[in-house]
């Protein structure tokens, strides 16, 4: 490297540094942070949430902004990594954001909790692990908010549907032991099933990066399960669906959100993508989606995945909190968030519980996949809560 180039590089770094510290906040803008995985393993969701949030920000700004100030989204990459997320959060706080749209990764939420409580800039995320929003002492984490059903609520819906509606009692479970999302959806499910008189005939695990589940599926098949609960990411959902067919194991799959579109088109085999039940945050036909759906499709030329709407609703929540608290600072968002009630979002009517900082009464839309086609079964909320920790 030549002398000149070196000096030039040095200057460039210096300028970048200054720009980072100075250029962030200007008067007529309300900065909102957005922490998503945009370069790591879960970047598909990160991108989806970001796009949804951007659409919401554009819409709000087009309607005159909040209190005459424009919203501005600053996106930080988390690489789905806790350390990156902490750095990113602190960086957002120092650039003056008033609230942060969080990632759909519970592990990051768990790590951010104490830091966010101290910094006082609230995080609105889809951390489905209830520990993110409710501390060990049973009190809500001041700065952490969830905007979709928690893993407990969610797996209760799935478990209740399995046993109360479908009447299936001998259940085989297969989940990724190294993945917090999967584990947090498995435990409450199992407890609910047991409390409701069902039986877990076989509990099989796999770990990150595993591709062949035929061994586990065969064991579950041999244990005489009459359905398979599989709360995992979409990639593995596709594998399990195909491999289930390959070993001739044709009981229903009770799946998580990840079986929502585009899952069936990924399986691309109507014989395999069959006899699968899942719960989605919304129905594609519901009218409140249309606007966002159309904007997204026009902008990106493909159909939005469900995380887009979660991103959109998070911005709506933050806007509503500002409105309720009558100001646009982070204190206002913190004050407004727990009292949000009956907000019409794309994914349902949102009411945040001040006790848990989780939405209450959110139902899910049940679907069955038959021969590669999604058949809507209507919204569902269990009548009874059976698990000991549900409130």
């Amino acid at each position, binding site marked *: *490297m*030549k*002398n000149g180039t*070196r000096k030039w590089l040095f200057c460039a*770094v210096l300028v*970048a*540094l200054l*720009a*980072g510290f100075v250029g962030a906040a200007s008067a007529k803008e309300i900065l909102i942070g957005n922490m998503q995985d*945009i*370069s790591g393993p879960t*970047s598909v969701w990160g991108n989806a949430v970001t796009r949804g949030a951007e659409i919401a920000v554009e819409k709000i700004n087009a309607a005159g902004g909040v209190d005459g100030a424009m919203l501005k989204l600053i*996106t*930080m*990459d988390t*690489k789905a*990594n*806790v*350390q*990156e997320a*902490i*750095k*990113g959060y*602190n*960086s957002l*706080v*120092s650039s003056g954001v008033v609230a942060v749209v969080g990632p759909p990764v*519970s*592990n990051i939420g*768990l*790590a951010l*909790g*104490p*830091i966010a409580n101290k*910094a006082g800039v609230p995080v609105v995320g889809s951390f489905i*692990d209830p*520990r993110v929003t409710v*501390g*060990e002492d049973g009190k809500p984490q001041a700065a952490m908010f969830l905007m979709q059903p928690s893993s407990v609520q969610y797996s209760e819906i799935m478990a209740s549907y399995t046993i109360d509606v479908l009447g299936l009692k001998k259940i085989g479970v297969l989940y*990724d*032991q*190294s*993945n*917090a999302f*999967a*584990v*947090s959806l498995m435990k409450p499910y199992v407890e609910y099933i047991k409390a409701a008189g069902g039986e877990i005939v076989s509990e099989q695990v796999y*770990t*990150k990066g595993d591709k062949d589940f035929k061994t586990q599926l065969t064991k579950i098949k041999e244990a005489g399960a009459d359905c398979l609960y599989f709360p995992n990411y979409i990639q593995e959902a596709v594998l399990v669906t195909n491999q289930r067919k390959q070993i001739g194991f044709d009981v229903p799959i009770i799946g998580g959100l990840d079986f929502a579109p585009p899952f069936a088109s990924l399986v691309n085999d109507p014989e395999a993508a069959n006899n699968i039940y899942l719960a989605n945050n919304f129905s594609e036909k519901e009218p409140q989606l249309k606007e966002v759906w159309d904007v997204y499709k026009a902008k990106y030329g493909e159909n939005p995945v469900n995380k887009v709407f979660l991103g959109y609703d998070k911005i709506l929540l933050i806007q509503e909190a500002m409105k309720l608290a009558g100001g646009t600072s982070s204190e206002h968002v913190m004050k407004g968030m727990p009292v949000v009630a009956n907000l019409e979002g794309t994914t349902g009517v949102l009411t945040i519980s001040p006790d848990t900082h989780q939405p209450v009464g959110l139902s899910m839309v049940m679907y069955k996949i038959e021969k590669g086609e999604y058949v809507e079964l209507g919204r569902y909320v269990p009548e009874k809560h059976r698990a000991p920790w549900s409130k």
Partner: protein
Amino acid sequence: MDYFVSTVIFTGIALIGVLGVYLITGLTGLFSLGQAAFMAIGGYVSAVLIRNYNVPVVPAVALAIVAAMLAALLVGLPTVRLRRDYISLVTLGFGEAIVALLNNSANITGGAMGISGIPQLTTLPVVLVSVVVCLALVILYKNSKYGRQCLALRSDELAAKSMGIDVYRLKLITFLFAGALTGYSGVLFGFYTTYLEPAAFNWIISAEWTIIVFVGGVNSLTGTVLATILLTWLPEFLRFASEWRVAIYCVIVLLIVNYRTAGIMGERELSPKTLRRLLGRTKEAPR
């Protein structure tokens, strides 16, 4: 300000971990693709002791370091006799095994959902003091008899053997020392983030640390320190690049590795003499 402090703290924590890799790779010429596992051991042992068994901080930290060293002994004993390439394989397998173990012992470690609510004890002064102490220890080691033997071992194992160096013992000692350092960095990490998850300790982290050592210059401790600072701050500067961040980072590392093969510092250390030379004459460097 918090941002600046947290980045400094993470740099310090990474630096202590990288020092362990420096001992193994830079000084001794071995490859560990499982170094992050020692970090996990340090972090988890201290966190579990404090949280689940109410052990006071100091003994908990001490036990965590001891545990990391024990693990290093466990891996080191059989592997130091193997060829270099096999050491990277065994350490890789060890790292994966530790992650599996953490995932499997959910009742102690919380499994994949991690362990949260660890007290936040790592502050800026703690990290700075730790860095200074660890750095001093590594400098002492490098300049000791062992350090010189390590360098001999690195350049030619057979020759080192014929010089009467007990290479197995030497490798094992280095391995233990590195395990202790990396374990301690794990302790600091857990006490800063207050949350630990097994997924944070995969082989990619170990590989990144090895890359840092090479970017700094294989034999140069100064280079290692500089490279750690540079490469932990670089992604922060690159945040403006959004999703291109990691890609640009990789390109920069590739350029350094290919066009300054000896690393930033080559084999030089920063001393008043080299400093003067660097300032007086920026253009030099055998390329």
